């Protein structure tokens, strides 16, 4: 590759990534050279500005056509743009939470890296959304994972945080190994790492009935490896411990940005590689029709396990870990029932989930930090201590429970519609999902009972820091807006990203 080809690429399409990279680099340098006494909290604002600039540059790119640079390893198509937007908004909120984060022993000299590691993780996630090659896909995944491992152990003197980091590294390592194992089959059979070429090769081979079992195995392995990332049952064991032990902003990051990235990579791989692949040489069934049962099982087990185990939790972060497992299951329902509305359903649900979950974690962070405990009893009488905060948290919980008037309800509606309109309909999955929702009422409304029915342990008013307040207000506005007028989001999706027609081209 000579300089001319290098310059001929339309680098502008990577602008959001470059901006995040530059800010991350800038922050690490600042952290290195600033005097020790300097309060590194202000670095958070630089990070935030960086993310916002990246959002603006991404919006500038919305109108551009699908572009592929660097020998097809980086593609900016509507799929990438749509999900990058979610990732960026999520990361911006997480940075705001991190700005206000104050563990009881303090973050001291680690505060700087706390901020730029979020950015590197975000960068990894963004690369994943846009990669057209298994190598870049994997590099993005690892960048995200390694940043997350460090972030989970950010409270270096705290045993819980150390446990979380340790468990996360080990589980993450195993999952990476399994994913790579599956990918190695794909590469070995098709002879390329480029997704588009690979898809062609795979379809041709499958049409002749070649390697079908091996492709099935590869699909299975990749799916399992990635389901660690999604924290879907039965590969969810790490999630409760990691969510509980990590600093709360990191938990929020894992449950929103990292999970979104997991779904993005899963969709990319499934849709580019397996969607058009025939299931046998007679071409009657497609590969996905014969193999989507794996995804359905993951979805069903996640919904049941997540919701049922959450019933027993007293620790709020642990409860939300299980709740997030259940929500991963809901989204998997949409992916398992691939149909006309799948993209809409996944995108909208992730957006809604981002808003309601980040809002909830903002409140959780505030309460757990001020009471130095994570028991749900700390929420007792929140209504007395701070009616507005309690009302906000109630809205997030209602949205998570899928009550009408909130974004969570519309998200669930979309998923149901997608699951039921296919032929044959996914009635079992839809029933499991709705049963899971009803079970979830128990623990979601259990929090409500604490907040509204129980007397408060202390009458001390709660002071809301600016960062947390901003996240709560933003998430609240979004949750209600997209619940009452969902077409503000859906039209935006359709106008700017079409029906993701350019995805496979």
């Amino acid at each position, binding site marked *: 590759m000579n300089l001319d080809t290098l310059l001929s690429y339309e680098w502008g399409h990577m602008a959001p990534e470059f901006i995040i990279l530059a800010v991350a680099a800038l922050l690490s340098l600042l952290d290195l050279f600033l005097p020790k006494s300097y309060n590194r909290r202000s670095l958070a604002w630089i990070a935030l500005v960086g993310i916002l600039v990246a959002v603006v540059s991404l919006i500038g790119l919305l109108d551009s056509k699908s572009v592929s640079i660097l020998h097809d390893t980086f593609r900016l198509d509507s799929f990438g743009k749509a999900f990058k937007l979610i990732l960026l908004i999520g990361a911006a909120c997480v940075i705001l939470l991190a700005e206000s984060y104050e563990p009881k022993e303090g973050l001291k000299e680690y505060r700087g890296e706390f901020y730029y590691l979020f950015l590197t993780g975000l960068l990894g996630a963004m690369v994943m959304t846009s990669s057209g090659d298994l190598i870049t896909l994997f590099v993005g995944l690892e960048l995200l994972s390694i940043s997350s491992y460090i972030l989970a152990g950010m409270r270096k003197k705290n045993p819980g945080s150390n446990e979380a980091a340790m468990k996360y590294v080990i589980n993450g390592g195993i999952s990476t190994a399994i994913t790579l194992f599956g990918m190695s089959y794909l590469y070995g059979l098709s002879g390329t790492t480029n997704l588009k070429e690979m898809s062609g090769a795979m379809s041709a081979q499958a049409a002749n009935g070649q390697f079908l079992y091996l492709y099935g195995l590869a699909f299975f392995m990749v799916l399992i490896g990635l389901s660690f990332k999604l924290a879907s049952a039965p590969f969810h064991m790490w999630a409760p411990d990691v969510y509980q032990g990590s600093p709360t902003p990191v938990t929020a990051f894992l449950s929103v940005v990292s999970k979104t990235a997991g779904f993005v990579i899963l969709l990319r791989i499934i849709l580019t590689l397996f969607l058009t692949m025939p299931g046998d040489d007679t071409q009657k069934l497609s590969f996905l029709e014969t193999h989507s049962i794996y995804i359905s099982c993951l979805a069903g087990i996640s919904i049941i396990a997540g919701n049922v185990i959450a019933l027993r939790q007293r620790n709020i972060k642990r409860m939300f870990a299980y709740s997030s497992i259940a929500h991963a299951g809901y989204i998997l329902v949409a992916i398992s029932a691939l149909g006309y509305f799948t993209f809409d359903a996944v995108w909208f649900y992730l957006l809604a989930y981002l808003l309601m979950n980040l809002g909830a974690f903002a409140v959780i962070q505030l309460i757990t930090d001020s009471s130095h405990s994570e028991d749900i009893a700390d929420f007792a009488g929140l209504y007395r201590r701070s009616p507005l905060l309690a009302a906000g948290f109630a809205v997030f919980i209602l949205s998570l429970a899928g009550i*009408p008037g909130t974004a969570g309800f519309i998200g669930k509606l979309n998923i149901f*519609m997608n699951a039921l309109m296919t032929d044959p*309909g996914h009635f079992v999955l839809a029933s499991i999902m709705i049963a899971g*929702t009803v079970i979830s009422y128990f623990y979601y*409304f259990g929090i409500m009972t604490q907040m509204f029915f129980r007397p408060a342990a202390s009458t001390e008013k709660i002071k809301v820091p600016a960062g947390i307040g901003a996240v709560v207000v933003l998430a609240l506005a979004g949750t209600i807006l997209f619940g009452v007028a969902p*077409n503000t989001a*859906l*039209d935006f999706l359709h106008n700017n990203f079409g029906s993701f027609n350019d995805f496979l081209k």
Partner: protein
Amino acid sequence: MNEILLSVLVFSPLIGILALCFISKNQEKAIKWAGILATVPALALSLFLYSYYLGGNNLSAFSEKVRWIQFGSIANADSKLFAVDYELALDGFALLMVLLTAVLSTLSAIASISIKKEWKGYFMLFLLLETGMLGVFMAQNMVLFFIFFEITLIPAFFLIGKWGYIEKEKAAFSFLIYNGFGSAVLLIVIMVLFARAGTSNIEALRYIINVGGVPLVSPITEGMKYGLLIALLIAFGVKLPIFPLHTWMLRVHVQAPPPIVMLHAGVLLKIGAFGLIRFGLGIFPEQFKDLSVIIAVLGVINLLYGAFLAFIQKEFKMVLAYSSISHMGIVLIGLGALNESGIQGAIFQVVSHGLIAALLFFLVGVIYERVQTTSLSNLGGLSKAMPLTSGFLLAGAMASLGLPGMSGFISEFMAFLGLFKTDPLLAGIGALGIIITAVYLLRAVMGITFGKQGVSVRTKAMRDLNSVEMVPVLVLLAFIVIIGIYPSILSNPLEDTIQLIMTGLGGQAG
């Protein structure tokens, strides 16, 4: 004004919520006044609509329709597909239900002066509940119906759980989970219809199910229609409630604060009946016909089961709770008869029981406030201490057991008339229930009013009904008697609805 009248009607209670935001939480009197006044616009508007309709005018002038949600980017091809409109409209049946809701809301807001704590939160939730209830009856598509339906769930959960009696939280969760299950089943039905027919508009669905529509990705098969109807029966069966899905409702009736029980027994349970008629009978008439015997049998079981258990209860509230179950059996009997008088009886029973149950539960609330018990053995001889209350209680019981000249009689008579035509044996068995009803109600009420002096009654200085409390009692009793004497005020508005249902059933004359 016409185009937004229904929206104003539905959302007028929300104005009250806004107003309440600006009242300090300690100003008890102002809060209660604001709460009561906020229910008045809906009442006035629904009375206006009622008289407008009785005047021979068409309600369709008030229909509203605005595009709300468009799923998928299919709009360019066919903008009707996968779209949910915000559409409200009224027909005679819905109008009656709206009027019932508005009347009971105002009366129960008046009854809420007995609430002892946190009035502000109480009335905010109360008004939200009213909005949900009003919307349910006007929604013209199933998604919108479901949304209003769920909106009633959340305030009711809090109202029961916070302002109820001793075991309130258990009752609230029981309410939430059973109803959550019911609405979950309902949501599945709605989404199957929506995903496969591409619309959730009731009118359009009626056509698609019975005549056939444009084939989309996947069809609604014949077998599926039966499945959907049975699912609807379960979903609304929880709400109604149909035995054996009724246990939650007993807890709610005993533990919830009296004004909320008034609304609950008076309106919320009736949503189940409304839904069965609107969706079950309206969208799936053919399938409903095939299942009608089962529905009638369920009705008879409900009637007898409720009546027998009401007979052995020691708590007056439990007697009334089981009596509600029993009376809802009559609705099912009327629907199972599937002829004009049966359906008319069912709808009459919905309205009439709404009024009677509200009256009785209001009086129970009054009695409980004075004597702190509703146990039958402790309440004997109330007529000396509280003559007015006892008198009205007796009147309510008479209406409930179906004394001619009161609303209960008309509805029971019509429902059974219908069933005797189609299935005399079943109707004969069911008619036993009427006798038991008389027995258990008289046993309970006579015991309370004229029975042996109860412990609680003798020891306390008693106040009888005060003037504020007289208002709900007199209004409810007046409605009950007027309907009993002059049932046309109900049957006239219902004509078009019943006509539509009968056409759906294939013009089977009643």
